[in-house]
């Protein structure tokens, strides 16, 4: 075990130990036969030495996969026109990707193509940005699509636009989505077409949106209509850190913002 540890700087054994059968699996492996070949294969794909640590912490079971299967899966992805750098990035962000069989990957890609009705290139970009769409369960994605269409009332092309900008919306929590949308649409009175232009609001914590909106209303600067002067766009409202928000948007000091927060 010792040469293993010295080579793989960065593998978090404490996390692996928490899984029940991990220790048995890892001890049974032989360094020369199994581990070395798979490590070389991963390095070929483009994963650097220092990134191997985090990869193996998540997916230590890759050592029990057959090298031939791994090569077939990579060949399949390349046949779908994923570039070499793209595949490396996907494997880095979703370590379990290569443990899925070819038909499962095929099903997943087909599902996203049909459900979202995006062009092939856009689906590819989406999957490269958020590869855990392929490894995670599909039920939350289906639920979220229904929520967007039926409950929140977005049209299909609006949903497509939002998802290409922020792919994380597909896997977001349903309750948080509805709460955020309820506040943004009903309390801040922002219509659908402006929310579509700035889907980042769904990615931020609700309390942040509430605090900043209440501060702007207190200062009288809560203007979200692009036609009127002193318009404040939603992305500037949510995506900026506190200091820049106070200085540029609210035109107040951070101390005033803190004092206001203590009056809520």
């Amino acid at each position, binding site marked *: 075990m010792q040469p293993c540890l010295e080579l793989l700087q960065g*593998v*978090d*054994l*404490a996390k692996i130990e928490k899984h029940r059968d991990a220790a048995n699996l890892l001890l049974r492996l032989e360094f020369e036969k199994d581990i070395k070949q798979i490590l070389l294969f991963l390095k070929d794909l483009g994963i650097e030495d220092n990134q191997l640590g985090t990869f193996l912490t998540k997916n230590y079971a890759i050592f029990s996969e057959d090298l031939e299967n791994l090569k077939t899966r990579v060949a399949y992805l390349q046949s779908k026109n994923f570039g070499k750098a793209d595949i490396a990035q996907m494997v880095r962000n979703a370590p379990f990707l290569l443990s899925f069989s070819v038909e499962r990957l095929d099903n997943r890609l087909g599902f996203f193509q049909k459900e979202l009705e995006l062009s092939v290139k856009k689906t590819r970009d989406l999957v490269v940005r958020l590869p855990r769409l392929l490894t995670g369960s599909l039920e939350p994605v289906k639920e979220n699509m229904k929520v967007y269409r039926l409950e929140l009332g977005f049209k299909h092309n609006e949903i497509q636009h939002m998802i290409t900008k922020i792919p994380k919306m597909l896997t977001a929590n349903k309750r948080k989505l509805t709460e955020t949308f309820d506040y943004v649409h009903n309390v801040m009175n922002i219509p659908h077409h402006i929310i579509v232009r700035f889907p980042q609001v769904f990615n931020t914590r609700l*309390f942040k949106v509430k*605090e900043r909106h209440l501060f702007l209303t207190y200062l009288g600067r809560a203007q979200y209509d692009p036609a009127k002067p002193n318009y404040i766009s939603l992305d500037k409202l949510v995506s900026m850190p*506190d200091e820049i928000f106070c200085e540029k948007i609210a035109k107040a000091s951070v101390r005033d913002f803190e004092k206001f*927060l*203590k009056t*809520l």
Partner: protein
Amino acid sequence: MGSAGLARLHGLFAAYKPPGLKWKHLRDTVELQLLKGLNAGKPPAPEQRVRFLLGPMEGSEEKELTLTATSVPTLTDHPLVCGPAFTSLKVGVGHRLDAQASGVLVLGVGRGRRLLTDMYNAHLTKDYTVRGLLGKATDDFCEDGRLVEKTTYDHVTREKLDRILALIQGSHQKALVMYSNLDLQTQEAYEMAVRGLIRPMNKSPMLITGIRCLHFAPPEFLLEVQCMHETQKQLRRLVHEIGLELKTTAVCSQVRRTRDGFFTLDDALLRTQWDLYSIQDAIQAAAPRVATELERSLRPGLGTQQLPGPDQPQDSKGPSSALLLESCAGH
């Protein structure tokens, strides 16, 4: 760094609880942030142990591998092998706030949790600002509850409200004296009453030591309440009852604690300041004040020497029942 950081992490500090957050979530968030800060520090240098490894012997002409003693770092304490150094911290909460209320929430870490019980036994008053809305009545006295009744409120004036508040304060004053179990016939008790220091030192229902109206713009009004042994729901019920006394109805739209004992809004840490360094600084800053205030409130008041009665225990710490002076009141 971790253990040095932990050494400075014993004591009381105040956090500002925003509305909508449960106090338990706040306590858990603070604990997670503290653990993150403690584990982020550099781990101590690993111990070395001597192992005999095969290696080429220098200075010899034969090219043989011989065992040499080398000092090798052990990996048993490495965080990647046995997990992060700190996995849990004991954080206690003082007087709780319910989910819709906001304001100062006192938290105690490590040895500071013992001071939390001392603070509870000191029975200090707390300050609240309560915002009310005339004209509505709901089932849970909050603005978003189920609507029960709607009334007009044109007849309500500032004078009527002030009169009602003075009535309330007067009746609670009588209750204060009654629950503090003091015999007002003695000189010491009279002097304490004059200075306004009477308060019950054991369990009692909610008692209001002071209430006044800060702002009145119908339908909204803003009250400042000093009370003890309260719950936020009782404060909302108070707003409802004030509405009834004014022959209209009222609901409470905001309950905010501005002072808990000797922790004020200025000491309270906002959400952005819930990290290791700010909390350590806050604990250090509050420590001397906490020590003096707790010592003062648990000591016998007015500095008079207490004459021990035949069955009076000799300890100087404040007993759990009424103020020490009651023993003098017995004669």
